[in-house]
C-alpha cells in the first residue's frame, strides 16, 4: 500500500508540474523586466501589458474575435438545438445522419476543411470564400460536436417527451412549448455547448489564418504575429488567451455541476 501511495504521489506531482510550469512561466514572463541572465527576473513591470493593451490593433483584433465567436455561438445554438430536439422526439430515423454530420468534423482537420471550402467555393469569388462570414460558417463546423453532445445529453436526461405532452395537454402551442418548457429544461446542455463553441472559436487560428488572414485579423493571428518579434508582449497576449480558456471551461464545469446537483435534489425530493 505504501509503495502505491508513493507512485501515486510521484505521478500526480509530475503531472501538475508539467501542466502548471508553462503557464506560470508565461505569466511571470509577461511581468519581468529582464530575465535571461539570472535565476529570478531582474525586476517586475507592467510595461508590456500597457504597451500591448494600448495598441489599436489589440482592440480591433479582440473585437473581431468576439464578433466571430459570438456569431458562431448564437448560430450554432439556433441550428443545433431545434435539430437535436426534433430528431430526438419526432424523427429518430434522422438521428444517425445528424450524428454523422456532428462526428465528421473530428475527422477533418482545420487545414483540410479550409482547403475543401476554398477549392469548392473558389468559383464564387474571393469576396465570398475569404470572408468573415465563411470563417463563421467554418468555425460552426468545427463547433458542431461541441454543441450537439451536451444538448443531446440534456435531452436524454430531461425526459422531453413527457414534458412536451404535458405542455400540449395543458394547451401550450409549439412556440410556447419550445421556449417556456423545453429550452429551460435543457438549458444546462445548451449553455455548455454554447460556451464550448465560443471558447473553441475564440482561439481558432488555423481557419482564421487560411480563410481570412490579414484581411480580418483575429486575436490568435495577432498573437502569432507578436511571437515573431516581441516575446514579452506576446506572453501578455498568451496569458489573456489562457484566461479566456480557463473562464470558459470553468463556466461549463460549473453549469454542468449545478445541473447534476439539481437533478439529484429533484430525485431526492420525490
Amino acid at each position: 500500500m505504501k509503495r502505491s501511495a508513493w507512485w501515486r504521489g510521484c505521478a500526480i506531482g509530475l503531472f501538475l508540474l508539467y501542466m502548471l510550469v508553462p503557464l506560470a512561466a508565461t505569466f511571470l514572463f509577461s511581468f519581468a523586466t529582464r530575465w535571461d541572465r539570472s535565476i529570478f527576473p531582474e525586476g517586475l513591470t507592467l510595461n508590456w501589458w500597457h504597451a500591448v493593451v494600448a495598441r489599436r490593433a489589440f482592440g480591433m483584433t479582440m473585437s473581431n474575435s468576439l464578433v466571430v465567436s459570438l456569431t458562431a455561438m448564437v448560430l450554432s445554438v439556433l441550428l443545433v438545438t431545434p435539430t437535436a430536439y426534433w430528431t430526438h422526439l419526432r424523427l429518430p430515423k434522422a438521428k444517425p445522419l445528424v450524428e454523422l454530420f456532428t462526428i465528421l468534423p473530428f475527422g477533418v482537420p482545420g487545414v483540410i476543411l479550409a482547403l475543401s471550402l476554398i477549392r469548392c467555393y473558389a468559383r464564387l469569388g474571393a469576396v465570398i470564400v475569404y470572408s468573415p462570414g465563411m470563417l463563421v460558417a467554418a468555425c460552426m463546423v468545427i463547433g458542431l460536436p461541441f454543441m450537439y453532445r451536451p444538448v443531446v445529453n440534456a435531452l436524454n436526461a430531461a425526459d422531453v417527451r413527457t414534458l412536451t405532452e404535458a405542455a400540449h395537454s395543458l394547451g401550450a402551442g409549439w412556440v410556447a412549448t419550445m421556449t417556456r418548457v423545453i429550452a429551460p429544461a435543457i438549458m444546462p446542455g445548451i449553455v455548455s455547448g454554447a460556451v464550448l463553441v465560443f471558447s473553441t472559436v475564440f482561439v481558432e487560428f488555423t481557419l482564421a489564418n487560411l480563410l481570412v488572414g490579414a484581411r480580418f485579423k483575429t486575436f490568435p493571428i495577432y498573437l502569432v504575429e507578436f511571437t515573431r518579434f516581441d516575446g514579452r508582449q506576446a506572453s501578455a497576449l498568451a496569458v489573456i488567451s489562457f484566461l479566456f480558456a480557463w473562464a470558459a471551461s470553468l463556466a461549463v464545469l460549473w453549469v454542468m455541476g449545478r445541473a447534476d446537483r439539481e437533478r439529484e435534489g429533484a430525485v431526492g425530493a420525490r
Partner: protein
Amino acid sequence: MPAAGPPRRSKIRSPLLWLPVLPFFLFGLFMELVPIATVVVSSLQDAGGQLTLANFSRALSPALRASFGNSIRLSLITAGLGVALGTVAGAAIMNARSSFFRGAATALADVATNFGGAPLAFAFIVTLGSTGIVTLLLSKLFGIALYPGFRVYSIAGLVLAYLYFQVPLMILLVQPSLRGLRREWREAALNLGATGRQYWLRIALPILTPSLVGGFLLLFANSYGAYATAWTLTGPDINLVTIRIAALIRGEVQLEPGTADAMATISLLIMAACVVGYLWTSRRSQRWKQ
C-alpha cells in the same frame, strides 16, 4: 409508444416531418459533404478533368512522402506517450483521497484539452526555448545545458508541446473506464493471492484495452491534424502534412492544386480509419459498463 396528448401530430407524413431539420442538413451538406467531396474528386482528376492518379504520385514524391512520415511518426509518439502517461496520471488522480483534489485535477485536464494552438506553443518557447525559463534554471542551478543538444523548435519540441493537450485528453477519455473497474474485482484478485501488479496486468489492463486503443486512435487523429501549435513553434520549415497543405493553400509554393487535394485525400483516409476505429472500440468498451 404511449398514445398520449390530444394534439398528436405523428399523423404528419414524412416530407413535412423533415422540414425542421432541413437547415441543419443543408448546412452539413454545403459545409461538409460537398466541399470534402470536391477535394476527393478533384484529387483524382487532372487539370482537364480526366481521371488520373498523377496527383497521388506527386503527393507521394520523396519530399512530400517525408512529410507523411514525419506526421505519422509524431502522431504515433505523442499518441503512445499520451495513452501511457494519461492512463497512469488518470489512475493516480482517481485514487487520490481528497475529493476536492480529484475535482480540481479533472478540471485542469478539461481546461488543458482546450489549450493548444498558438498560446500553448508560445508558452513552450518561454519555458524551454533557447533563453527559456526552465532552460535558464537548469543551467544556473544544475549546470545542465539543454542547448544545442535539444531544440524546442523541432519535432522533439513538438512532442513535448503536443503532450500538453494529449495527456489531459487521455485522462478524460480513460476516466469512465477506470471508474468501471470495480473495487470487488481487485479485492477478489488479491484474496485469491494475486499481487497488485498481477491484478493490473491480468485483470485491469485487458478490461481497459478497448478504451486504451480507442484513446490511442483519437489522440493519433488529434495530433495528425494539429497545425497551429506546429506553425507557431517551428514555423513554415517543419515538414509536416498540415504545414505542407497550408503552404499550398497560401500559394507559398508553386505546385499544382491537385497535389494539395491528393495530400488531403490521403489524410482524410487516415483520419477516417482512426475515427471509425474509435467508434468501434468505444462500443466494445461499453460492454463493461452495462
